[in-house]
């Protein structure tokens, strides 16, 4: 048959060049993550210099640097900065795959009610936690995690037979409203002190970060991201639509269930440890898609990196807004995220989705 034009410079070279370009973008984004992480380490109410921070990190014996600096770095800043990266990566990758399996550009990990359920769980624990012989911080985290997974199980149970986009979205949104209504009820019944605790929990904050929590998010990411990567080609194929993915031999129903389970775990871990930090899971995949396209071999890691970058930068800003104080990071991500998102929409009106 006719060929419109001769393909220039060897098709293989062109393909390799485009792969190399996308890899370079990912490496550059990783470098930016190092920058924001460093900035995150040197900003804070204690006004430490880079030299003090570095010596506390690289000379881990407390005697080598002064003890206060050592405590600030190792029990406050490092866990928080690490948690920002880990939670950002979890939300970014979860958002990427929610948008993929629901074929919906405005979906994010919170769309399906997972975070609202977590919020309800945390509020329950805050109100009734004193009845349990447990540290209230742990009971809130535990209850949030359990409620979030419970919501995911309800969605899985309802959509098990026919995991269509409609079933999953409608079940998720119904759960979202239910959880919000229950949460409002608890807030209505709560004492002013308890209400304040609940509201602060819902804001989302990295100050709850500990090494143990960071370890758990690391484990979740280490297990789930490779599992998602195994489905990379199938998820890319799903972008062509359900029928076409099926024509390529993809079991769409099983894929959707599998990936949703992974998303639910990532979201539950992230939300229960740091609260509902909005917008990261929505924006990170969009930025990633703009930069490296829809091929999941690049899109998935790039979404995770964008999420980490975004939350890490938000963490820095949350310390700079009110010098000497810590602004709730969940508010920062939305306040900065919304204008960025508008800019993104206006710039790409030709439609990259």
């Amino acid at each position: 048959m006719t060929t419109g034009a001769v393909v220039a410079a060897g098709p293989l070279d062109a393909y390799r060049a485009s792969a190399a370009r996308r890899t370079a973008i990912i490496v550059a984004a990783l470098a930016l993550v190092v920058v924001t992480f460093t900035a995150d380490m040197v900003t804070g109410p204690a006004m430490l210099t880079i030299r003090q921070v570095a010596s506390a990190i690289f000379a881990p014996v407390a005697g080598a640097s002064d003890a206060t600096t050592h405590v600030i770095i190792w029990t406050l800043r490092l866990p928080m900065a690490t948690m920002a990266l880990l939670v950002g990566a979890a939300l970014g990758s979860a958002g990427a795959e929610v948008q993929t399996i629901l074929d919906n550009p405005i979906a994010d990990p919170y769309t399906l009610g997972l975070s609202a359920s977590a919020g309800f769980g945390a509020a329950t624990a805050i109100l009734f936690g004193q009845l349990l012989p447990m540290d209230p911080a742990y009971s809130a985290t535990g209850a949030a995690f359990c409620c979030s997974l419970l919501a995911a199980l309800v969605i899985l149970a309802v959509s098990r037979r026919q995991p269509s986009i409609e079933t999953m979205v409608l079940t998720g949104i119904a759960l979202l409203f239910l959880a919000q209504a229950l949460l409002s009820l608890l807030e209505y019944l709560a004492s002013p002190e308890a209400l304040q605790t609940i509201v602060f929990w819902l804001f989302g904050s990295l100050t709850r970060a500990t090494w143990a929590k960071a370890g758990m998010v690391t484990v979740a990411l280490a297990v789930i991201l490779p599992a998602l990567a195994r489905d990379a080609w199938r998820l890319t194929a799903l972008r062509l639509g359900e029928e076409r993915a099926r024509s390529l031999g993809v079991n769409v129903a099983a894929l959707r269930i599998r990936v949703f389970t992974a998303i639910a775990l990532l979201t539950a871990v992230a939300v229960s440890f740091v609260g509902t930090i909005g917008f990261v899971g929505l924006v990170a995949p969009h930025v990633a898609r703009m930069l490296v396209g829809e091929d999941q071999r690049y899109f998935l890691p790039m979404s995770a990196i964008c999420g980490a970058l975004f939350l890490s930068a938000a963490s820095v800003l949350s310390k700079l807004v009110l010098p000497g104080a810590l602004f709730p990071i969940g508010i920062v991500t939305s306040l900065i995220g919304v204008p960025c998102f508008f800019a993104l929409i206006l710039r790409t009106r030709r439609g990259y989705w």
Partner: protein
Amino acid sequence: MRLSIAHLSVEFHGVPALDDVSLDVAPRCLTALIGPNGAGKSTLLRCIYGLVPYRGQILLGEAATRSPAAGGRSGQVAYLPQDLQVRSRLSALDVVLLGKLGSLAWHVRDADVERAYAVMEDVGVAALARHPITELSVGQRQLVFVAQALIRNPSLLLFDEPTSALDLRHQLELLTLIRRLVEQREATALVALHDLNVASRFADHAVLLSRGRVHAVGAPVEVLTCPTIEEVYGVEAEVHRRPEGDVLITAIRALPGR
């Protein structure tokens, strides 16, 4: 590849879409699947590929099919769906590469890229390789999907109206390409077509479906007669037999009361 269908029935919410269809598709031939809208052409193709639950039996090669994995994973069967809407901005080359989904490694092998280009060259869309699929015209998109279906070198082609969006020249070129695959690579093709003239010119056999049943099977010139067209399509038509062996059909008017 042998394809044999016996007593195949499919219902959608109690409404029969296929009703006791029995059919032997001749190997190494191009069989045209024709019939009016809603006759069951697409459903039949989707059944054969294992996408629709059915009653009856479908034998593909030596094995009975139940799921796309049965034929799809082996790479021997290519099913080309009709839907041409896409919202993805994957490049045309990536779309074609996805045709090898089952055997793609994380790092795409050079051989796979070269194969994708070769197929796109065959189909006539190599120049579009780096364009996002959404930016192509519907006809170009259709050809990219044809290339995707052909990249695995399938021995059974199940194509659902592959020419629906193509201009005259590309219609002829695509059907010539399918004929070449049938004759040179011994592929078996079952192709749903709306254009009866094209069907009669390129197909070895025609299967005429009407309301979920097989109305007629045979050489296109035998199937495409005035009374049959009148009965199945509700259209008064003129049928000219040409010396080349095919027929030329001109629809005159829709018959009232149908």
